[in-house]
């Protein structure tokens, strides 16, 4: 029962803050909402018993990405954002398309209704570590390369032109 309550609460937080991200005119607010939303998702992970993913979500998303975005918003944002319309002209067709997507998702969801959780979740860190350094070693290494490349790229883009 508590599980259900927690789920609904988290769902409310996630969806509201997600709407906030999408709809709030102020970019600053959006960014804050994003942080909230991500934290909510982290909560979902926790409720699903994925402790390691929960930790990663908090550390990387909430602690890293959201903060990074906040910084950028501070750098590139402007006061006029709140006055200027933040939604473009194609919001109506987009809305319709999104409705169609949602309808499709619901349909898919229908196939999975009534599947209960099998057992109580167990701590997964050790198992994930074994996978990472075992079967998934290659993707793992590739991810590190991607990170390195993106870091280099970010530095390159961000750096001022050499005089």
């Amino acid at each position, binding site marked *: 029962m508590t599980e259900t309550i927690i789920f609904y609460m988290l769902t409310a937080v996630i969806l509201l803050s997600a709407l906030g991200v999408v709809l709030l005119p102020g970019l600053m607010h959006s960014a804050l909402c994003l942080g909230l939303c991500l934290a909510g998702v982290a909560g979902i992970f926790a409720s699903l018993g994925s402790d390691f993913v929960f930790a990663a979500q908090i550390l990387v998303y909430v602690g890293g990405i959201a903060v990074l975005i906040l910084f950028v918003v501070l750098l590139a944002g402007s006061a006029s954002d709140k006055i200027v319309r933040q939604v*473009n002209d*194609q919001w109506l*067709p*987009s809305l319709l*398309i999104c409705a*169609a*997507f949602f309808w*499709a998702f619901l*349909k898919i969801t229908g196939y999975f209704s009534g599947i209960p959780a099998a057992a109580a979740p167990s701590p997964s860190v050790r198992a994930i570590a074994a996978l990472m350094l075992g079967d998934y070693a290659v993707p793992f290494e590739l991810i590190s390369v991607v990170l390195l490349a993106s870091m280099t790229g970010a530095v390159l883009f961000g750096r001022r032109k050499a005089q």
Partner: protein
Amino acid sequence: MLEYVYILPLLSFAVAGLILAFGRWLPLKGASAGILVAAWGFSQGLMLFVKAIQGTITLPYEMSIPWFSFGGNQATLGVYVDGLTIAMLIVVTAVSLLVQIYSTGYMHGDPRFKRFYCYLSLFTASMLGVTLTNNMMVFFMCWELVGVCSYLLIGFWFEKQSAAYAGKKAFITTKLGDLGFLVGLMVLFYATGTFEISKIQELAHAGMIPAAAAGAAGILMFLGAAGKSAQFPLFIWLPDAMEGPSPVSALIHAATMVAAGVYMVARLYAVYALSPIAMDTVAWTGAITAFMAASLALTCFDLKRVLAFSTVSQLGYMMMALGVGGFTAGMFHLTTHAYFKALLFLAAGSVIHAVHTNDMREMGGLRHKMPITYITFLLGTLALCGIPPFAGYFSKDEVLAAALARNPVLFAIGAMAAAMTAFYMARALVMTFHGKPKDAHKHDHAHESPAVMTGPLILLGAVSVVSGFVLTRHEMFEHLVNFEGALPFELHHVNHSAVALFSSIVAALSMSLGVWLYKARPDIPAACRETFSPIVNMLEKRYWLDAFFLKLVDIGDSLSRFMFSFDFNFLDQIAIDGWAWLTLKLSKIQGWLDDHVVDAALNATGTITMSAGRMARLAQTGLVQNYLLFVAIAVSIFAAIAFAG
């Protein structure tokens, strides 16, 4: 000794190259090498001559190596020696030797001294080639090479426009004759199947050559001889050739090269003998030439040109002799003439060297200044005029005897020419050496030439005196050239002594007349010039032959201009470029059609495409979200299809 005779021309060729390449470091700038080789050649020729007279060598001798093969035929390179060859060999080497010695004095200090000797050696080599070869093809080659040497030597002082012109004229005139030679050679080749002289002679003796072919070949080749030996009407080049240095005139244009034509006729005498027409052509051309040239010498004031006309006239004699069947006479006259005419030219050269002019009107009274020259010139004159017992007497007498035996008309022409010869030689002698000096300045500066020049003069003078007498002893010369009985028919002998007496009297009379007229009564010739001015004019114009050939050249020139103008204006600009023009015009028309018909259709397609494109372009908003929207729409459509399915 005979085995090594082929070395003679090769050595001369080598020496020519040697002088050109290393002459600077050789003694006398290379002249020594040329002289040495010529001397050696002369000694060889002399030894051959002696042995041939003694009969210790077998003649004819032939030796050859394969040269190249062409379409199943073999061309050879080799020597053919018989009495005729030896006679010519001596002439060539002797005159070449003396002229080369003489030239060390005459050409002293000339900036192109070295090259002069190179040319002389080259000439000697080619002339030896003509003399010795066993093969008409090589004969023709050397014949042409001789012509080139003549061209180079006539134009030796090429800074003088007239010398350059004379060289060209000589070359082209002889080349005109050589065309005949070339065609004749081809006729001969197809009639006999070979170029080798010995085989041609064999076939001719055996009567295997059709008379028509022999006649055609003979006459055509005689054209070449007429060019080289300055016969009517091609003799026009020889007087102009006197632009060359005097030793050259002596060697090439008196003794050797101009005799090559006579030698050629003699060489192929067996062929000529087969065709009476060819023989008559030779005889009559010779006679006409002898007469015409002698008459031309009468009015000439240029010392060397007088001698040149005299040479032409004497060559005519030789041809006439050959034509009437006087084979021995012709060759004998060739031999003796070579010596005394070379002598006369060298003596004239000596005079010119002293007074620096060719014009006899500016000379006179030189006999005291230049005694040796005078005496040798006198000897040469006497020999030429046929005064006994000088060389010319014997040979000319034989020629006239042969002519009389064949045709009295020819004899008459010959006798008239002989009379004129004596007259103009007397005139030249007197005008040059006797009387009062006409140009005091030139006379004062005149001096006897150095020993290297007078030495050869003296030697030649001696030869001119004795050669006729010596060679007729025991019919020595006749035995030599007639070694194997080259003649297919025998001459009927005429009374030699009567002819001899007649001709010497004519010569003596005419000569005394000349001496008297020009020494005692110079007014009479002057008056004659006035009285007979049309004739004099004709003679000075050289029977308008020069004008005739110049006209030919003009015609050739205008022909060439016409042809080129046809080539350029019509063929190239109209016929060929006309095509291009036509194509261009057609393409213009087609282009118009293209623009207005085909293109219109094409343009319509284009327009449609364009407007479609313009519409399609609207979709390209450049907005990322717009694109994404379309992606999303597409995905949802696919999803709808998937679900519906």
